[in-house]
């Protein structure tokens, strides 16, 4: 998307004030947007999912842009000690992201390629199953959420997640934040777990997740339950893989290869 939805609505609103009428504004600013509006608004999905077109990631900057967008949006601290890092979205080599697929004759292009990994917002998430306080819970729209104020920091969910998607605040994360921080998203305190939240705070406003927005179309976000959604179209037309499908967690992040 060239301009984000909020910006778009603002301009459309101003345009209608000028007497152009909403529809005309749509045609001027974004041809074809009217059909797009026929889809369910972004804030109302039944099963959110992400499709990552790994073929569109060419240079390290392509990854970094997405990672930085996430870190900035969510005030993800940059912890110097890699052993106690906080990671929401990051890169891994093929053999680490898909360890069950050990093929020594993989095409060069695959074997040395990086893949973006993040919480899969599993349909049947073990992290939710093991959490003793419901600090980790699944919303009806499929987003697996963290309640930072409920979490006791037992780290059971970290042992339970088979994708290494969770991070623990071993120390006060605010010490590792670079100013200025994003005032619209809370910072965390020491002793709690955190992870990718599929940008639920942005979706609520109709915005796409920060990483997807920064990806130049390489990451697509949408409702798997809607047969007309972009994600469904991509999955219908391309071969996709998921991480560790044999575990039955039903990840909702798909990779086009």
């Amino acid at each position, binding site marked *: 998307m060239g301009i984000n939805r909020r910006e778009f609505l603002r301009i459309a609103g101003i345009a209608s004030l000028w007497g152009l009428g909403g529809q005309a504004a749509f045609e001027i600013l974004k041809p074809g947007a009217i059909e797009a509006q026929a889809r369910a608004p972004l804030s109302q999905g039944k099963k959110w999912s992400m499709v990552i077109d790994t073929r569109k990631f060419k240079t390290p900057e392509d990854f970094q842009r997405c990672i930085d967008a996430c870190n900035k949006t969510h005030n993800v601290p940059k912890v110097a000690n890699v*052993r*106690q890092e906080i990671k929401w979205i990051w890169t891994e080599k093929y053999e680490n992201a898909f360890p069950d697929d050990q093929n020594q004759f993989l095409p060069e292009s695959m074997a040395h390629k990086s893949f973006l990994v993040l919480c899969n917002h599993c349909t049947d998430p073990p992290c939710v199953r093991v959490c003793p*306080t419901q600090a980790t819970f699944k919303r009806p729209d499929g987003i697996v959420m963290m309640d930072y104020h409920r979490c006791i920091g037992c*780290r059971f969910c970290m042992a339970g997640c088979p994708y290494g998607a969770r991070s623990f605040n071993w120390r006060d994360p605010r010490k590792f934040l670079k100013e200025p921080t994003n005032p619209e998203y809370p910072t965390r305190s020491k002793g709690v777990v955190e992870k990718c939240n599929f940008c639920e705070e942005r979706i609520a406003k109709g915005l796409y997740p920060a990483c997807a927005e920064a990806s130049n179309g390489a990451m697509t976000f949408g409702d798997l339950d809607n047969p007309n959604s972009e994600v469904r179209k991509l999955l219908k037309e391309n071969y996709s893989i998921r991480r560790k499908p044999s575990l039955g967690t039903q990840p909702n992040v798909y990779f086009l290869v």
Partner: protein
Amino acid sequence: MFEKALSGTKTYFSWIIFLLIFIGIGFACYLYQYNEGLGITGMSRDVSWGFYIAQFTFLVGVAASAVMLVLPYYLHDVKVFGKITILGEFLAIASVVMCILFVTVDVGYPNRLLNIILYPTPNSILFWDFLVLNIYLLLNLLIGWNVLAAERKAVAPPQWVKPLIYLSIPWAISIHTVTAFLYAGMPSRHFWLTAIMAVRFLGSAFAAGPAFLILLALLVKRLSTFDAGQEAINKLRNIVTYAILASIFFVLLELFTAFYSNIPGHKHAFQYLFFGLEGHNKYVAWTWISVVAGCLSALILLLPLARKSNAWLVAACIGVFGSLWIEKGLTLVVTGFMPSPLEHITEYAPTLPEIFIALGVWATGFLVLTLLYKIAISVKLDPNSASIH
């Protein structure tokens, strides 16, 4: 009865002071951890549980092993255990106290610990573990105290204690089973994902706990005039013998499944333990010490050696306890995280403050144990209390 804990010999008080020093150091380190966060430990994103949870796991076993006295004594009327059943129950109390403390020092947000009860979550094994452990503590406190108080007055314990005693038998099994389920139900943690985890836990618990009890009973005999009786010791010895053999057998079963199936994920953890994985071998020496100590002790117990002299028995019990402490209190938890879900190997070693906090908790456990034993033995030896034993 508590006043009995307040008088004693010089050695008794020196011991108490010795423990208090360790509790003090541990507490100071804990304050440091409380302020800084768990970042002061050796744990990491990849190895998110370490020494604390390992101690907890081991000690749940020691707590559960009290059933090895309670069950024969109350269900099968094995009279020789009459004298020491209370020692088993008090050992259970001290162990559960340590378990609860180890969980407390391990959570990132201790002020919120009660969220476990405020928001009961039946799908979480940790909720059940919290529940069964606390009830087990309560059961043993009620039983132990009432039986001892009755003994002091030379009357039979109150009627309502009996059903509690019977309840405590399956309850002991349950605490260790539930603790095993903390591990055994996690996808992608191949080392823990084994159906025999619970029996393996029980096997090692019924060896380590009674072995420790034998050591304690022999120590008490040396320090006071209280003698548990050789026959009771012998019976405990038999329990330790069979339990350690079962325990070794269970490990062999795991090795068979891992290596005969040839599934990499299942083999990695054992390779890490026994030989090291990709140059990472922090626990290889420990593993072999545990294997050798466990097997040698089993041999000593099987041969007539330990039956002839208590010196051999003591050696075997130290061997069994040490071997199983390494297995559960050191390697079992850490190895579950090797390699990580993303196939990285991050090794773990506890830091100094972490070790001192753990020592502080152990010292607290020993303090509880010492006070309770002092009371129990004073009651038993008191010529004025019409003790039946």
